[in-house]
């Protein structure tokens, strides 16, 4: 039986993240027959099928890409590996509508690539980017870091003696990877993959620009052109069911396996695998990912900004927005990581139906479009918390509902790798619960906690719908500035804000990676 000091906060947090569900329930009840009619008319099954296909494909592609990159940057002697680690997590900060727009400009029909190929080789047509291929490409490139960050944490926290034992028993490197390393990575892959799947489910920016009609797209259609929040809520309830199905599917991959080492002795850091002649292909691979995810977008943005300066466009002062972005993102990272602890502890140390239900509940918010979360807080906030409505605490609360699973997942992965006997030893030596937590558990969980904080920080930096609606009046962030300018075709201004967004976000990532170095 878990101690109430753990259960109570976890229950409170799970109740808080269920608020959007209550809201959707109330609104869907109001929709009545009209909702069934709409579900029937809009070929719901077809749209659901398209959504499922995209979710599956993006998740699989992201896991493959993240696995390769995480292994290269933690386990090999890849040159410049600190640099790659900072760079490779940055795509997370690019809002999907900006990323998709830039990919269309570069790779779309009559885009930059086609233009260059036409001049060189007379190519006048590229394979069609719009639709499924474009949506898959852009969502994979923007979301693989969800898997890569927890996976890096798991790889660097994993005790190499297990792999060494396998090697000493005559297994090849590949067999060791497949039969020892990969199974040990399962919690990281599952928690990251879940985030990618739910992110894809809730994305609107990329799918709408790529003209791939998913369920979230249909929900936005109800808000944007029908101004019908009741029908939108009814459709969102269907989306909740899809999210629950994904969560159940992921639950089945969880076994009773233990992921920590049971023998005595502290874990060493693993010795890097020499890449040898594979060094160059590995570098080339990293460079291609870098070019697609960052170099290309950044150079287009720079080009726009420079062209804007050349044609005397006016640029707003972005200091305030930059400071606001940093402030809310740092606060959100701190608050969300703290809130994730009780839920993660409960689900790892006291696994039962209730604790896993509580933990699963935190994921729902991530699978819903941001506008739904925002409106549900408007519904409750304007009625029952008027003094908090449109204040900073409320905004942070919204970020919590949206991004809690990112931190819960990372904390769980770390905790699973930690042998509870270490804590027991601490207690047997007369330390209290809190002292053990402070001196043993939290320090050992550090890679996971930092990865969670980094994820939440980057997600908050680019968050738009909740920020627009729930922030204190007059509060601007870099993301809202990008949106404001790009919606009216002020490309130069949008580019300036987006550039600052990416640059500023790389600072905490750099610190995170440098810390990682220090501990080696």
């Amino acid at each position: 039986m878990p101690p109430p000091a753990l259960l109570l906060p976890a229950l409170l947090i799970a109740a808080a993240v269920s608020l959007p569900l209550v809201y959707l329930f109330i609104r869907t009840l109001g929709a009545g027959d009209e909702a069934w009619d709409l579900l029937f008319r809009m070929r719901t099954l077809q749209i659901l099928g398209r959504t499922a296909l995209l979710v599956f494909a993006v998740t699989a592609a992201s896991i493959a890409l993240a696995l390769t990159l995480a292994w290269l940057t933690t386990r090999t002697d890849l040159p410049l590996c600190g640099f790659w680690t900072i760079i490779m997590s940055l795509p997370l900060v690019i809002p999907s509508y900006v990323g998709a727009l830039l990919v269309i400009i570069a790779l779309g029909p009559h885009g930059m690539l086609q233009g260059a190929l036409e001049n060189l080789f007379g190519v006048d047509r590229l394979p069609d980017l719009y639709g499924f291929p474009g949506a898959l490409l852009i969502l994979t490139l923007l979301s693989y870091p969800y898997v890569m960050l927890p996976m890096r944490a798991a790889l660097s926290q994993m005790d190499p003696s297990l792999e060494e034992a396998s090697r000493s028993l005559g297994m090849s490197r590949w067999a060791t990877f497949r039969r020892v390393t990969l199974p040990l990575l399962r919690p990281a892959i599952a928690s990251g993959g879940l985030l990618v799947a739910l992110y894809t489910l809730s994305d609107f920016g990329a799918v709408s620009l790529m003209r791939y009609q998913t369920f979230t797209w249909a929900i936005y259609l109800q808000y944007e052109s029908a101004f019908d929040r009741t029908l939108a809520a009814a459709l969102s309830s269907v989306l909740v069911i899809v999210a629950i199905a994904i969560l159940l599917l992921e639950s089945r991959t969880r076994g009773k396996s233990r992921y920590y080492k049971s023998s005595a002795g502290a874990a060493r850091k693993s010795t890097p695998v020499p890449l040898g002649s594979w060094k160059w292909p590995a570098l080339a691979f990293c460079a291609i990912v870098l070019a697609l995810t960052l170099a290309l977008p950044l150079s287009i943005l720079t080009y726009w900004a420079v062209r804007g300066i050349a044609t005397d466009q006016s640029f707003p002062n972005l200091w305030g927005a930059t400071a606001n972005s940093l402030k809310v993102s740092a606060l959100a990272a701190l608050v969300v990581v703290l809130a994730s602890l009780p839920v993660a502890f409960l689900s790892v140390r006291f696994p039962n139906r209730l604790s896993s239900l509580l933990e699963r509940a935190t994921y729902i918010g991530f699978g819903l479009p941001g506008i739904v979360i925002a409106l549900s807080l408007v519904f409750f906030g304007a009625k029952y918390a008027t003094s908090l409505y449109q204040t900073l605490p409320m905004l942070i609360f919204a970020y919590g509902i949206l991004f809690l699973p990112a931190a819960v997942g990372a904390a769980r992965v770390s905790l699973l790798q930690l042998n509870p006997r270490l804590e027991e030893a601490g207690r047997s030596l007369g330390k209290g619960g809190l002292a053990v937590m402070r001196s043993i558990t939290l320090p050992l969980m550090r890679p996971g906690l930092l990865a969670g904080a980094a994820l939440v920080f980057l997600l908050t930096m680019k968050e738009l719908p909740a920020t627009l609606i729930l922030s204190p009046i007059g509060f601007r962030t870099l993301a809202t500035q990008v949106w404001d300018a790009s919606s009216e075709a002020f490309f130069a201004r949008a580019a300036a804000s987006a550039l600052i967004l990416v640059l500023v976000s790389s600072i905490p990532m750099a610190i995170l990676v440098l810390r990682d170095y220090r501990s080696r």
Partner: protein
Amino acid sequence: MSLSKPGLPAWFTRARLPLLLLTLFASLALGAVACGEDSTPTRTTQPAATGSPVASPSPTNTPVASSRTLTIYSGRAESLVDPIIKQFSQATGIKVEVKYAGTPQLAATLLEEGRNSPADVFYAQDPGGLGSVEELLAPLPQSVVNLAPEWARSPDGKWIGVSGRARVVVYNTSKLKESDLPEDIYNFVDPKWKGRIGFAPTNASLQTMITGMRSLWGEAKTKQWLEGIKANDFKTYNNNSSVVDAVSKGEIDVGFVNHYYLYQFLSERGESFPARNYHTKAGGPGALVMVSGAGILNTSKNKEAAQKFLEFMLSPVAQQYFASKTYEYPLVEGISVNRLLTPIDQINQPNITMKQLADLEGTQKIMREAGILP
């Protein structure tokens, strides 16, 4: 030992890490301070309230004190309307706070807030947004309603138009001349336009144009048009600016958009940008002129200032701002428009009122039936 790692910058040593962290936190803290400063003046720099209502009903140059901040929910982008809202504040001495977001999102927010809404004014991109919250809007005094021409206001006097925007056909100038384009938008069903047309079916303005078709042509002809356009393999875009962009790149030859997006492209890319607007010569729904508009919330506790805001937006100063800075059409007489714009009297505007453009639901139904919306 840690220095031997590959990729680690030489200047980085263990000793410098605290310094780095300190720098980050200092900058975060500075951010917090800066924001604190941001919000304080909005409450304190105003002269103390006199409490008495202001005598002069029209915006004048004499600043007056107001007891409350006027809260505006703006569905129009900050980049477009912030300067003129600041001018209003300066001219009247009324302190203004604005929440910027998309028109549909703000409409949904207002509906969820209900009686507890902090908003005084809803300034929306299109009549559809205002129509969806009509139950929350207060009837405007006749003197305010009369500021906008009759075609550009709500049938029940709950909101008024602020600026006009024309529906246009934007075309690629390296592939087409204006004379290649049909006089009536109906003629785009001709198979010669196959694969050359694009628009944003989810865009509220496009849907309003189709509502106009239903009103001017009747349901049957509108359906024929939609089916004809579908048979011509039109390309779907996300919003108006991607349509203009695609036209300029030759991805499509013509697009159905609002007129003003083109001018922002022209100002960033220069006049060699290969796209121009065309107003259908025969008039009809292709030459529709619509409005952005504003209304006052029923629950507003600051209706007097809100009314002043509406009056200001239709004053010559504001109307001139829209005509010259956002490339829109003024709704009052005697304003000169940007030289790049087709003067409004040269547009063969159909005779239609905003009331006839209200039925968005019927339009979405017909678009669904034609397979253009899912």
